[in-house]
C-alpha cells in the first residue's frame, strides 16, 4: 500500500516515539510510506540511526496515495479529499473534549477511521456521536528494540530490586503520590525506586530532590540512604532501552509507549493509578494533608503484558 503519513516522529517525546514506531511497523509490513514531520517547539530527536530512516521516508516522492494517516492532536488534523482513505490517530491529552473538538471528531469520523490505543483515550472519545472508532494495538518494532544499549550503573543501589518509571513533564500528582508511598512503605525493603526523567530541567530536578527530602523529614524516616533515585536522561531510543534494561519492574503511571516498551523488553509491570483525593484532618492541616489513595501501591503485584499488533488487520480491513 502507498501511504502518506503525517506525524511527530522527529519529536523527542512519547508521541514522537509512537510515531517512529508506527513508521517502522508500516515499513516492516512492506508498505511504501512517505512521511512528513510536524513540530511543536519541543525537543527534537538526536541525529541517530532512526533519523536516517526518516530521511529515507521523507525523500520518497509521489502524489498518489492509497491512504493518508494523520497522527496529530485534533486541532492539527485536517479533512482532505486528496487521498481517498483517511486514518486519524489523534494525540490526546487527558483534558477531555471541548465542544469544538467534539464537533471536529464527529466530522472526521464520517470520512475516516479514528484510532485509539488506551482505555483512557477510549473513555475520552467514546461518545454517541463519534463513530468509526477502532482500537489500535501495536508492538514495538524490531528496529527500535535492536538498538545497542548499555545498563546504567547505580553503584551501591545495584544490589536492590529496582522499581522504575519513566516520566516527563511536571511533577504530577501521581508521581508525588508514588514517592510518598514508596518512602513510607518500602524504605526498609531491598527495593529502590528509580525515576528516569527525559529532557528534564535543573529546576525540575531540584523540585524532585526537595520533595523527596521533605517526605523523609515529614514522615521522620532516616534519610541516610535515599531509596528514590532521580535520573535525568536524553529522550532517545538507545537511552530509553538502557533505562528499561536497567530496571527490574516497571511502574506504569499511564498507559503509553513506555509500558509497551518495557513489556517488549520482558519486564514485569505494576500498574499504579492514583486518584488525587486529599482529605485534611480537622485541626491538623499538615502541609500534605492526609492522602487517601483510591488504589494502593502494591509492588508485589506485577505481571507481564501480552503485546498484540492489529495494524495490518486495520489497514487491510479499512483501506
Amino acid at each position: 500500500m502507498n501511504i502518506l503519513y503525517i506525524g511527530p516522529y522527529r519529536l523527542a517525546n512519547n508521541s514522537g516515539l509512537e510515531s517512529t514506531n508506527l513508521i517502522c511497523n508500516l515499513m516492516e509490513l512492506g508498505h511504501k510510506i512517505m512521511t512528513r514531520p510536524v513540530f511543536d517547539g519541543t525537543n527534537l530527536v538526536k541525529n541517530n540511526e532512526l533519523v536516517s530512516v526518516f530521511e529515507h521516508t521523507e525523500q520518497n516522492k509521489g502524489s498518489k496515495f492509497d491512504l493518508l494517516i494523520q497522527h496529530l492532536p485534533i486541532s492539527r488534523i485536517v479533512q482532505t479529499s486528496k487521498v481517498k482513505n483517511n486514518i486519524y490517530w489523534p494525540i490526546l491529552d487527558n483534558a477531555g473534549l471541548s465542544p469544538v473538538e467534539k464537533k471536529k471528531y464527529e466530522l472526521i469520523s464520517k470520512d475516516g477511521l479514528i484510532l485509539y490505543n488506551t482505555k483512557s483515550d477510549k473513555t475520552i472519545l467514546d461518545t454517541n456521536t463519534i463513530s468509526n472508532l477502532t482500537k489500535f494495538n501495536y508492538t514495538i518494532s524490531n528496529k527500535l528494540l535492536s538498538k545497542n544499549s548499555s545498563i546504567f550503573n547505580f553503584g551501591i543501589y545495584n544490589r536492590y530490586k529496582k522499581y522504575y518509571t519513566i516520566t516527563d513533564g511536571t511533577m504530577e500528582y501521581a508521581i508525588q503520590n508514588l514517592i510518598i508511598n514508596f518512602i513510607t512503605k518500602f524504605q526498609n525493603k531491598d527495593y529502590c525506586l528509580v525515576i528516569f526523567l527525559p529532557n528534564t530541567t535543573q529546576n525540575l530536578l531540584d523540585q524532585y530532590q526537595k520533595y523527596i527530602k521533605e517526605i523523609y523529614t515529614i514522615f521522620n524516616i532516616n534519610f541516610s540512604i535515599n531509596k528514590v533515585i532521580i535520573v535525568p536522561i536524553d529522550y532517545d531510543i538507545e537511552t530509553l532501552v538502557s533505562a528499561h534494561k536497567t530496571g527490574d519492574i516497571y511502574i506504569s503511571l499511564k498507559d503509553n509507549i513506555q509500558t509497551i516498551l518495557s513489556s517488549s523488553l520482558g519486564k514485569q509491570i505494576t500498574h499504579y493509578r492514583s486518584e488525587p483525593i486529599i482529605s485534611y484532618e480537622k485541626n491538623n492541616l499538615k502541609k500534605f494533608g492526609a492522602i487517601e489513595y483510591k488504589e494502593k501501591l502494591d509492588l508485589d503485584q506485577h505481571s507481564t503484558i501480552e503485546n498484540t499488533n492489529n495494524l495490518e488487520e486495520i489497514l487491510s480491513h479499512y483501506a
Partner: protein
Amino acid sequence: MLSNIATSNIISSIFSKNILLYNAKKDLFFTILLQCELFNTIDSPSQPFSILLSDNPIDFSQTSMKMSLIYHVNSLILFHKEPPQALKKEDKAILDKKLKNSYRLFFSKDIEKSWGLATTEKNINIEYGIPKIDQHIKSKNVCVVNYHKDNGIQNLYQHIKNTIIDCDLIDINTYNNEIINILSQYKICIIPHDTYDTLLAASLGGLVYTSSTQIDESISSIEYIKDYNSINDRLKSDLDRWDTIDASLKENQSYIHGKYNIDKFYSEFNNICTSISRKAFTYET
C-alpha cells in the same frame, strides 16, 4: 480549529500547484511574480501555501524564521543585493547558521559570493526575468521611484524638482501593470537601489539612473550614479540630447529581453519552488 494551516500546508505542498507566500517588500519583482500562471503568489496566509518567500535575509534570521516553523513550509530567501557594509565576517557566520534551514536564491554569483555563506545544496543561482511590455510614448521627462517612502530618496526628488520642473515622484504602492505603464511614460527613471526595478525600467525603453552595483555593464541605458550632487546637470544634458539617446536604446531592450528571458525565468523559478516545496519541511536547532 476545524482547519489547521500547518497541516494544510504540508498537504498543499505535496498535492497542489505552488502557492508562494510573499513575506517581502512589495516591489516590481513581486508584481512580476503575481503575473505568472505557473504558480500563485499571495501576500498573506489566507489560504494554504507551499513556500515562504523572503527578500530580507537579516530580518528573516531575526524575526521571520519562526514563521517557517509555525507554518511547516520550507522558506526561500531571495538575495537581490549585496549585504550591508555593516555586516562583518562574524555576523555573516552567525547569519549562515541561522539560515541553515532555509533555501537561498541568489540573482548572481557575485551576490552569492558577497554574502559569504557556506556553499550548500540549498544555495541556488538564477537570472532575473524581464517581461516584454507594450511601449508608451515618452511623454514625460523624469521620475524618481520611491515605493518604500525612503527619506533620502524623497530629499533627492526635492533636490531635482528645484531645477527640473517636469519631475515626478512615483511612490504609489500598486502591484499590477499600472505601475509599469506609468514608468514606461518617462524618458529617465531614477531608481537608486533596486536592481530588478532598474532592469525592468530599462526594458521600457528609457534611461535609468541607479546606484545598484549589480547591473550588467553592457546595458548602456542604465547609468551608474555614485554621487547624486551633480545629478541635475547630468539630467539636463541627457534630456537635451534625448533624440540621439532614444535611437540607441532599442538595442538595449533586445539585449535585456534576451538575457533576462521572462518565460525561462518563470519556468526555472517554478521548478525551483516545486523542488523545494516537495521536500519535507525539517529544521535543525
